[in-house]
C-alpha cells in the first residue's frame, strides 16, 4: 500500500510524464532541427510548471494530501515528483530522442537499411552521408542552440561553460576515478 506522499509523487509524475510524451509526439514534428534543443527545454519547463500547479491544487484541496500534512511535506513531494519527471524526460531525450536525432551509428544503419538485404561499399555509403554532412549538421544545431556564434565565416564558442564542455569535465573527472 502506497503512502499519501508516494501517491502524490506518483500521480504528479505520471500526469507530467504522459503530457510530456503526448506533447513530444504531437508537436515535435513541427520543430525544425535548428530549434529542437530549445523545444526540449520548453517541454521540460512546461512539465515542471504543470507539476507545480497540480501539486498546489492537490495541497489546497487535500487531494491525496491529508489535512494534517505540513506545507513543507507537500513541497518535498512536489520537488521529488519534479526530479523524477526530469530524470524520465532526461532519459527519453538522451536514450531515445537524442540518438534518433543525432546518432551517427543509427544514421549509417538506416542508410544500410534502405538497401537491405543488399549492401553498400564504403564509397557508396559515404556518398549518401559523409563527414562534411555530419559536421555541417552539428554546426547548424549548435548555432541554433546558441552554443556557437558565426562571425566572418568562422565559428567560435559563445559560452565556454556550455553543456558539452561541462559534461566533458564530468567525464574526465569520472575517468580519473575509474582509470586512475
Amino acid at each position: 500500500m502506497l503512502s499519501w506522499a508516494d501517491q502524490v509523487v506518483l500521480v504528479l509524475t505520471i500526469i507530467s510524464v504522459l503530457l510530456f510524451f503526448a506533447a513530444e509526439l504531437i508537436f515535435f514534428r513541427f520543430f525544425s532541427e535548428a530549434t529542437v534543443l530549445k523545444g526540449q527545454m520548453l517541454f521540460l519547463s512546461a512539465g515542471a510548471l504543470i507539476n507545480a500547479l497540480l501539486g498546489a491544487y492537490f495541497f489546497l484541496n487535500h487531494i491525496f494530501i491529508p489535512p494534517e500534512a505540513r506545507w513543507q511535506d507537500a513541497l518535498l513531494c512536489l520537488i521529488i515528483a519534479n526530479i523524477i519527471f526530469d530524470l524520465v524526460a532526461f532519459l527519453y531525450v538522451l536514450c531515445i530522442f537524442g540518438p534518433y536525432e543525432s546518432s551517427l551509428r543509427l544514421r549509417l544503419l538506416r542508410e544500410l537499411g534502405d538497401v537491405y538485404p543488399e549492401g553498400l561499399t564504403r564509397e557508396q555509403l559515404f556518398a549518401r552521408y559523409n563527414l562534411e554532412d555530419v559536421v555541417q549538421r552539428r554546426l547548424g544545431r549548435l548555432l541554433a542552440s546558441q552554443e556557437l556564434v558565426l562571425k566572418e565565416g568562422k565559428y567560435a564558442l559563445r559560452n565556454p561553460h556550455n553543456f558539452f564542455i561541462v559534461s566533458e569535465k564530468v567525464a574526465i573527472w569520472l575517468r580519473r576515478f575509474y582509470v586512475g
Partner: protein
Amino acid sequence: MFYLITAFLLFLLAVIVHIIWCRLFFRKRLTMGSLVGLALSFLSVYFFIASETESFQRGHKIDARSAYFIARPDQPLLGVGLPSPFWSVPLKFSALLLYLLFIPVYLIFYFGTRVESPSKRILLLLGQKGRLSLKEILTFLNEETVMMARLEDLCRCGYAIISDNKYRLSKSGGTVARILNIYQLISGRARGG
C-alpha cells in the same frame, strides 16, 4: 527524507564499489553490467532498511543499531539539532523509483567517459583553437575516426557485416532499422544523423 537519503547513499555506495571493482579488474573497458548488478543487489539492503523502519514506526522492538539511524518524526534528526520538517515524509516507493532511475542516468555519464560525440569534439576543438571555419574544422576531424569508427562499431556489435567489400545489415541490424522507421512514422521527425 529518510528513505531518499538511504536510497541515495546506497546508490553512492554501489558506484564506489563499482569504481573499485573497475580499477582492480577492468581498467581498459566499460563494464555496464557490473554496475547494474551491484546497484540491484544493493536494493536488498534498501528493502531491509525500509522494513526495519516500518517496524520502528509501528512501535515494534528492533535492533538497536538500526534504531540509531532512524529518527522519529517528532524528534530532532539523529538526536541533534531541530526536528526536521522533511524527515518523516513517507516516500519509500518514490525513493525506490529514484534509485532505479539513477542507474541508467549514471550509465549515460559512465558511457561518456569512453565515447566522444562529434558535437563534443567540435566544441572541444573550438575551445582549444578559438575561431575556426568549416574547412578548418574538417581538417581536424577525419573520416577514419568519425565515420569508420562508428561503422566498425556496428560490425563489432553484430548489426552489420562485411561481405564482397560491401557493408550489409545483419538480421538484428535490419530489425533496428525497421524500428527506427516506425519511430519516424510516429514522431514525424526527419531522418537524424
